């Protein structure tokens, strides 16, 4: 897969010439076919994300946040519109190229952790490195380093069932970072955690963004989480209805801010 080499991006968008965008979404539409005809989950989403951004996506349940994240994560393909990552159009990519993209460029963190129960924490973290063709000794060394980075240096040999939810999510984050992707995607990463553990995970994302220059996009229902980011995108009915710094977006509850969501 041709493309510019991944160099450590500048930490955060600084002054000067605008960097080349990491992600460009142009008029993304996603339709789901069902018995009752097709359902439009995304109705023309356009979004540009620059390297080093820390971005939160908010919106009521069913508004299309996960659908959007799956497209950004190259797990799903849009029905219409263009999605470019690092200047490359994903719709032109072959299946192995998309797998390669998921492997090298993107780290995905799920609400339900999605660790493989049979593997140890270390082997879970090392799994993407297997598909990257990294030799066994280096896989192990990197997995240990990453587990130490997320504060689980001593739990490499534990299986997911032996870890708490917060610890499992840290393993999942370490796994998402294993290959050294520039982009970290997290769909409600704190959704299955208590608020204290959630805050720790959020701090970890923030540190990764600030200290390592990883671009982070996370989906959250929690305004407190969104407030810790640099940019908040609000989605409703498959459309972006607001996009800006958290202080402003969170202060202007759009027509979307259903009480049910705020309450949760």
């Amino acid at each position, binding site marked *: *897969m041709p*493309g510019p*080499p*991944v160099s450590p991006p500048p930490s955060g968008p600084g002054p000067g010439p605008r960097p080349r965008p990491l992600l460009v979404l142009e008029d993304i539409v996603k339709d789901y076919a069902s018995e009752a005809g097709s359902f439009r989950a995304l109705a023309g989403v356009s979004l540009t994300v620059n390297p080093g951004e820390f971005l939160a996506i908010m919106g009521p349940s069913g508004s299309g946040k996960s659908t959007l994240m*799956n497209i950004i*994560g190259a*797990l*799903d393909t849009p029905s219409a519109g263009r999605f470019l990552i690092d200047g490359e159009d994903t719709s032109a990519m072959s*299946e*192995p*190229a998309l*797998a*390669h*993209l*998921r*492997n*090298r460029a993107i780290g*995905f963190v*799920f609400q339900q952790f*999605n660790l*493989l129960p*049979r593997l140890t924490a270390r082997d879970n973290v090392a*799994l*993407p*490195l*297997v*598909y*990257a*063709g*990294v*030799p*066994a000794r280096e896989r192990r060394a*990197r997995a240990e*380093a*990453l587990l*130490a*980075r997320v*504060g689980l240096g001593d739990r490499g040999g534990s299986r997911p069932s032996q870890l708490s939810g917060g610890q499992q999510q840290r393993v999942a984050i370490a*796994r998402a*970072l*294993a*290959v*050294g*992707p*520039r982009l970290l995607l997290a769909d409600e990463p704190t959704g299955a955690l208590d608020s204290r553990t959630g805050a*720790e995970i959020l*701090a*970890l994302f923030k*540190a*990764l963004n600030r*200290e*390592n220059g*990883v671009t982070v996009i996370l989906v959250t229902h929690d305004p407190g989480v969104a407030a810790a980011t640099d940019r908040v995108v609000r989605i409703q009915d498959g459309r972006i209805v607001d996009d800006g710094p958290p202080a402003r977006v969170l202060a202007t509850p759009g027509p979307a801010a259903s009480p049910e969501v705020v309450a949760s």
Partner: protein
Amino acid sequence: MNAPLPLAPPVARAPAPGVAPLLGPMLAEAVAALAANRLRSGLTMLGMIIGVAAVILMLAIGNGVQGQVQRSIAALGSNLLIVNSGAARTGGGFSQGAGSRPTLTLDDAEAIARLPDVIAAAPSSGFTAQVVAGPTNWLTQVTTSTPAWFTVQNWYPEDGRAFSAMEERQAARVAVIGQTVARQLFGASDPLGELLRVRGVTFTVIGVLPERGQGIGGVDRDDVVVLPLTASLRLVQGGGAFRRFVRTISVAVATPEAMPAVEQAITELLRRRHGLGPREENDFSITNLTAVGQTFQETTGAISLLLGAIGGISLVVGGIGIMNIMLVSVTERTREIGIRMALGAPRAAIRLQFLLEALMLSLVGCALGVLLGTGLSLLASQLLPFPTIISPASVVAAFAISAAIGIFFGWYPATRAARLSPIEALRS
């Protein structure tokens, strides 16, 4: 939060590595996956184990039978025609026309010996007798014949010598004995020059035949005493001594190709000599031992083939079992497949993973089957009158066939796994 440790550097944005470097880790995963489901894996492998064991056992028995038949034929002397007194009996065989009166004469044998392509013709009779040497005695098979017998049998004394044509004509009281008789009558001491009595007549042992082992049906062919025919006719067999009749004439033919012609020539010769009219039936029968051996070999070959086919069917059933369990496994592990795809596994890697699992099942099953089959073959060697033979080729073939079965029946489940869409697999 801990001290800000640096992240591991990104893996260089190299082209996709392809599946070759995945072989090692995926093999390890296949082993782990099967080990995690030990009972299920074992039950799945049962079909392969039984199939492979059956094939190995059948081939070992088939090889053993063939080896035995070949040895028997070689030991009988190749290109052998057996002429028996009495009409051909349905069911054929080696029966010496028991109950019927001998119709063959020594002169018949001499006439046959003069036919083209005949190397030797040995007239012989046989009877069972108690043979006595000093205080010991032994019930054995006594064969009476001419020196041609040793040629026809391709069996010459290793100690001492065979009796000569002169000795035979003069009814010399000499005997050649087999290893079993030597052991039973004389133990460890040298039998040469010792005396033995057959039906009250004393003979001097002048030769001991080398060991020949078991014949078809487990007969001990070393349990034999060979006496000159004339002496036996006069002294031992008593009645009909001067009619010089024998039950059997064994004929050694020069080449296998000449055997049908010689058989025909013998038939014509004997009919003429016995004065049989065109309407009369033969008063003798001719058996082609090579043909009998071949028929026997073909029959056992067919039986092994049949049993091999049964083994083959259980292999296919085993393969279907593998396919079934792999389909179950793919369904159960759909989410795992989705996770792996999300982490960057291309479809080829997913296919490889499940193919290797199927292959492991079939190959481990095969290895266990080879062990079981070998054990059963060794057991069969104890129970059968001949040793079974496990050829390395059959083991190699078993592994090759099992690998083919693993790939063939693993392909569809593996492809099903690889075809899943990452997002749908994740949502399952």
